[in-house]
């Protein structure tokens, strides 16, 4: 009986969560799918964003994410490799690791403000794709590092020992025998981090995202439109909120699908690499 | 730590003691039959040998099982292999008592050649040696085992004495005594062989205790 009550409680929990998710997705799909067509995806916004499409926002998000990836993936993996393979296991390492974990809990707006000071002002990159991408990159780093370290930890010590015992140097052993096993996990973590970054508004708010730009950025030092920020404007800042509501729903749907796709890529990457390894 | 093997080992020990008791009885009875010229008793010894043979096989199978199932090491291994040897030695001793009993059947209907003095002496020596060798195994008493081995010399001397006397004093002087003298001669030889088997048991006991082979190297024993 007690067991039955326990099961029921747990079942209700999961049903509630799924229900909430389903309602949100259903609502967005229902209202958003009406707006979406080829023009919506490929045209510039017109007439104070009350008409036209969201093409520049999609492109902007795409390029910002590339910058984010270029910063956070190599840097994150490098940090993780150092921390897990080379750093001595002492108090300092523990402190560093703890700080990294804490950083991933810092509110994203704080990263945004930090980005303004560091990239926009100090490095004089102005408000641009570069500044925004780097800011998002910084924000994603703790995630990437933590996920990569977990992936490295999951490689059994015996694999390292195997090559060290054959007279391999530490780096030879990591490169040929540890990374091949860790990379799927590392990439998955990195892509999940990126998908989170792609959906962020606050860090790009002050560092590069533009309110309304009916043209595409010409270089990485231009301002840009981004999907999450566009959605934010459409649903709270626009002068004719009621009128643009369908556009807001359309944008939300595109953003969700985009992030879903990225996660899918992460899952497929992991699956494929793992399969290659096992063969 | 109490082991399952310990239980099996004490079972083996009990069986070996049972075997030893039967064999000691057989020695006693066969000599008794000779002294009393008792054909019935001699026949009984011959009959009872079958029981000893069966027990020997039973113990041997038990030992093979122990070796196969437990793969014993060190003292356990030495105990079990020693048990195996003792088992075989005891069975041979039993066969010798059958031989003696057959000699009794041959001489029982004839008058005694001479009063038996030295043969009962050798017989009691054989009995003591067998008893002590088994005792040294049970008590793991190295000194007792050594004494058994060293006393084997006396039995050799006694046998030689008996045989010489039978040949020189009877058979050489009067050839017709031969049918009565030869069985006694053979009994003396068999009794001495029992003593040899007893000292073989004692040698195994020393191996069990010390893991030192004194077999064919009695000098190793003397040195100490």
């Amino acid at each position: 009986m007690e067991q039955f009550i326990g099961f029921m409680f747990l079942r209700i929990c999961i049903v509630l969560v799924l229900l909430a998710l389903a309602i949100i997705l259903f609502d967005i799909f229902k209202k958003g799918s009406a707006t979406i067509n080829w023009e919506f995806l490929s045209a510039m916004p017109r007439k104070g964003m009350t008409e036209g499409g969201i093409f520049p926002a999609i492109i902007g998000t795409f390029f910002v994410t590339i910058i984010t990836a270029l910063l956070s993936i190599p840097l994150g993996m490098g940090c993780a490799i150092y921390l897990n393979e080379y750093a001595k296991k002492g108090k300092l390492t523990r402190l560093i690791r703890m700080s990294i974990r804490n950083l991933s809990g810092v509110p994203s707006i704080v990263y945004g403000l930090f980005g303004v000071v560091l990239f926009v002002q100090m490095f004089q990159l102005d408000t641009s794709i570069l500044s925004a991408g780097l800011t998002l990159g910084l924000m994603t780093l703790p995630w990437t590092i933590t996920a990569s370290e977990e992936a490295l930890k999951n490689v059994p010590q015996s694999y390292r020992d195997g090559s060290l015992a054959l007279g391999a140097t530490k780096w030879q052993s990591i490169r040929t025998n540890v990374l091949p096993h860790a990379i799927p996990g590392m990439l998955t973590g990195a892509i999940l981090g990126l998908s989170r970054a792609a959906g962020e508004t606050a860090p790009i708010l002050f560092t590069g995202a533009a309110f309304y730009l009916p043209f595409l950025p010409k270089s990485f030092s231009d301002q840009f439109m981004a999907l999450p920020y566009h959605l934010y404007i459409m649903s709270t800042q626009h002068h004719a909120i009621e009128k643009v509501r369908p556009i807001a729903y359309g944008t939300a749907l595109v953003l969700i699908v985009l992030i879903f796709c990225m996660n899918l890529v992460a899952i497929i990457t992991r699956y494929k690499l793992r399969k290659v390894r096992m063969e | 730590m109490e082991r399952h093997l310990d239980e099996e080992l004490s079972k083996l020990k009990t069986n070996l003691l049972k075997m030893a008791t039967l064999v000691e009885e057989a020695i006693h009875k066969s000599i008794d039959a000779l002294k009393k010229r008792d054909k019935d008793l001699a026949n009984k010894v011959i009959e009872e040998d079958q029981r000893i043979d069966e027990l020997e096989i039973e113990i041997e199978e038990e030992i093979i099982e122990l070796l196969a199932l437990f793969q014993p090491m060190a003292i356990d291994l030495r105990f079990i292999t020693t048990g195996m040897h003792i088992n075989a030695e005891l069975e041979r001793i039993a066969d010798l008592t059958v031989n003696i009993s057959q000699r009794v059947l041959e001489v029982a209907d004839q008058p005694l050649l001479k009063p038996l003095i030295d043969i009962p002496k050798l017989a009691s020596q054989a009995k003591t040696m067998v008893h002590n060798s088994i005792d040294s195994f049970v008590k793991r008493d190295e000194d007792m085992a050594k004494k058994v081995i060293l006393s084997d010399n006396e039995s050799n001397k006694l046998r030689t004495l008996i045989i010489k006397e039978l040949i020189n004093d009877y058979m050489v002087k009067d050839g017709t005594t031969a049918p009565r003298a030869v069985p006694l001669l053979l009994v003396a030889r068999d009794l001495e062989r029992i003593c040899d088997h007893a000292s073989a048991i004692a040698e195994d006991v020393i191996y069990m205790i010390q893991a030192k082979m004194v077999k064919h190297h009695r000098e190793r024993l003397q040195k100490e």
Partner: protein
Amino acid sequence: MNVLLKDEELKSTEFTENNIKVCVEDFNFYYDTVQALKEINLKIRENTVVGIIGPSGCGKSTFLRCFNRMNDTISNIRYEGNIAIDGNNIFDKDLDVVDLRKNVGMVFQKSNPFPKSIFENVAYGLKINGIKDKGFITERVEKSLKDSALWEEVKDRLHKSAFALSGGQQQRLCIARALAIEPEVLLLDEPASALDPIATAKIEELIHELKKKYTIVIVTHNMQQAARVSDYTAFFMLGELIEFDVTNKIFTNPSNKITEDYVTGRFG
């Protein structure tokens, strides 16, 4: 010195100076503040197999991992005393640990082939040592696989993944991998503990063959295995070397009461 020692020679623990391969003197080992090995003194003779037995946590694996300094990968370790291979102290400051490990091969408890083909696994040690001559590599791979009694089973699928091999084959592949760089000493850390009896028997046969060319130290949980494969046996307990003697002696008549209790299964 590729000559098998005669049984008579094996019976003696009196070593002459020129047949000692490894010499351990007053060796202490600490993990942080915990002393894992206490005052170990031991000599290992060339072309023999030394079995190391003892209850879990007795320090036998730690000891094995000292010979190729695999313990160096753990932080906060400390050692005192000497281990010399061919008279050279392996803790010498001028000694490159990478060179040491080329000379002292190791096979681990869990077979750990690399995520590569069978061929690449065996060639790995050669390639990281900068050998590029393809003919030489091919030749050496074949030789190592033959020496580890795996050649016949894998010669038709050298370029298939090593993961496709069975557990026992994987472990022999790991041995082949170690042999490829031609070490002089071979360390085996419970090499058959995860294998079925037939695969185990193959490994044991292999060890018997290998001692013609190598000096072998094997850690094993399985006493019967130590009895079967080793010429000398060392019994460790609580970080101490309790008894070291000819294998036959250890298993029929150990000198020490603790050794006897252990080999007869009275504790542990």
